[in-house]
């Protein structure tokens, strides 16, 4: 029952495959992004040099950005159209609700997805467009990325939001990464257990990797050199 104009004519299975393939692009990106970010713990020089290297990629960086933007747009668009159709197809469900197996993560996919979308918007305003805080903007514009991150996470509310958003991303991925294989027809009962485990492990790695940075800034461990003024 295709309803969204952009995906009219694409079957349920084809649109699910689009979800899985765009999800895969995001899964790859998230892992790369997290690994790069962990240079934070190597100190200001390492991280600032990495940021400069990324920016100097020029057209390659833009190609990656456009790919990500397109993937996110398709993922959200198709995700919302599928979720809306599924609500209608269920017709309210039984008066007595019972669940035997569907995991919390699987049932919360649209909800965790929407919070992640909100997070992506805030995150881009915060560190990419630097429109949230002038101090953060000044450090970022001067190429002092390590300082920018420390200033950005100095506010416990902001740090808490990052940590909660990453926890929800972990939940999204703990279903999504295994679901992706099923959607593409690359799973069976023999591999479902190991893939579910791998998805959960991937989710936890992403969560711990990302959340460690705001957490480190909040508790001041490890101690880094004073912010350059």
């Amino acid at each position, binding site marked *: 029952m295709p309803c969204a104009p952009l995906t009219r004519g694409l079957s349920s299975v084809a649109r699910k495959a689009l979800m899985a393939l765009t999800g895969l692009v995001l899964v790859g990106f998230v892992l790369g992004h997290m690994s790069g970010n962990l240079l934070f713990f190597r100190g200001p020089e390492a991280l600032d040099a990495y940021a400069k290297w990324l920016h100097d990629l020029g057209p390659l960086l833009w190609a990656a950005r456009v790919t990500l933007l397109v993937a996110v747009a398709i993922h959200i668009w198709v995700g919302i159209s599928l979720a809306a*159709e*599924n609500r209608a197809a*269920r*017709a309210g469900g039984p*008066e007595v609700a019972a669940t035997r*197996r569907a995991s919390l993560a699987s049932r919360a996919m649209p909800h965790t997805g929407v919070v992640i979308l909100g997070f992506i918007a805030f995150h881009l305003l915060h560190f990419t467009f630097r429109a949230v805080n002038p101090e953060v903007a000044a450090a970022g514009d001067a190429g002092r990325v390590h300082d920018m991150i420390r200033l950005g996470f100095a506010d416990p509310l902001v740090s808490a939001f990052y940590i909660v958003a990453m926890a929800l991303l972990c939940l999204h991925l703990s279903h999504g990464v295994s*679901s992706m294989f099923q959607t593409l027809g690359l799973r069976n009962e023999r591999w479902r257990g190991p893939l579910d485990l791998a998805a959960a492990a991937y989710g936890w790695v992403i969560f711990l990797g990302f959340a460690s940075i705001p957490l480190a800034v909040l508790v001041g461990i490890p101690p880094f050199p004073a912010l350059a003024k």
Partner: protein
Amino acid sequence: MVKENAPGGHDATLRLTLRVWRQRRGQPGAFEEHTLAAVPTSASFLEMMDLLNEQLVRAGKEPFAFDHDCREGICGMCSMTINGMPHGPLPGVTTCQLHMRNFRDGETITVEPWRARAFPVLRDLAVDRSGFDKVIQAGGFISVRTGSAPEANTLPVPKPVADAAMDAAECIGCGACVASCKNGSAMLFVGAKVTHLNLLPQGAPEADRRAVAMVRAMDDAGFGNCTNYGECQAHCPKGITLDVIARLNRDYLGARLRGFFASTGKPRRGGD
């Protein structure tokens, strides 16, 4: 009534409160509450419903409509959502094979029809499952020349393939997968049919066309999209697994890819 597990030759009985869905086609429905004073524990769930209906008829009231046929777990007609679970609390059984010994004395049991947009209520607990028929009409068959049957041994089928096809062919088309799915998706049913036929040499020549046509019919009938909850497998009375859904996804996506690059049999348009 058979006395299968009657201790001391007598059936234990249960006193039950039943909340049963009452609905006329096209009108809103509601639960009606009734009590049954003595339900034998050896009665099947459908026999318990028979007792309720007899009690209603004796009181000059209207009995509840519900689907049933074989009452031995093979036809796929019985279809009740019992305390929120299609075919009730016991995994791997149909409603007709669920016995009252699985309930407690004094229990309140809620009985609803399958709930899904693609399965509109005809009356009370009976729903219209013709959406499944449309899916079957689209590809749940093989095309063969009629006439005398060919010698069976001319078509070798490896044992593991025959086993897997038979596992999928166990699907009785009851619709519990749709009713249990929080998306109202029919992927377990469609996957079972596609797997059963596409695995076998008789079905293989039409495998691509079948996968595409059955998915289209499934979407057109108003079923939802699978998000891999896995509820269907946990409620299917025949133990059909998510493997058939993976197979359906694989066959469908492969068919679309092959279709995309298939030869048209003609030179390209407007050129040499």
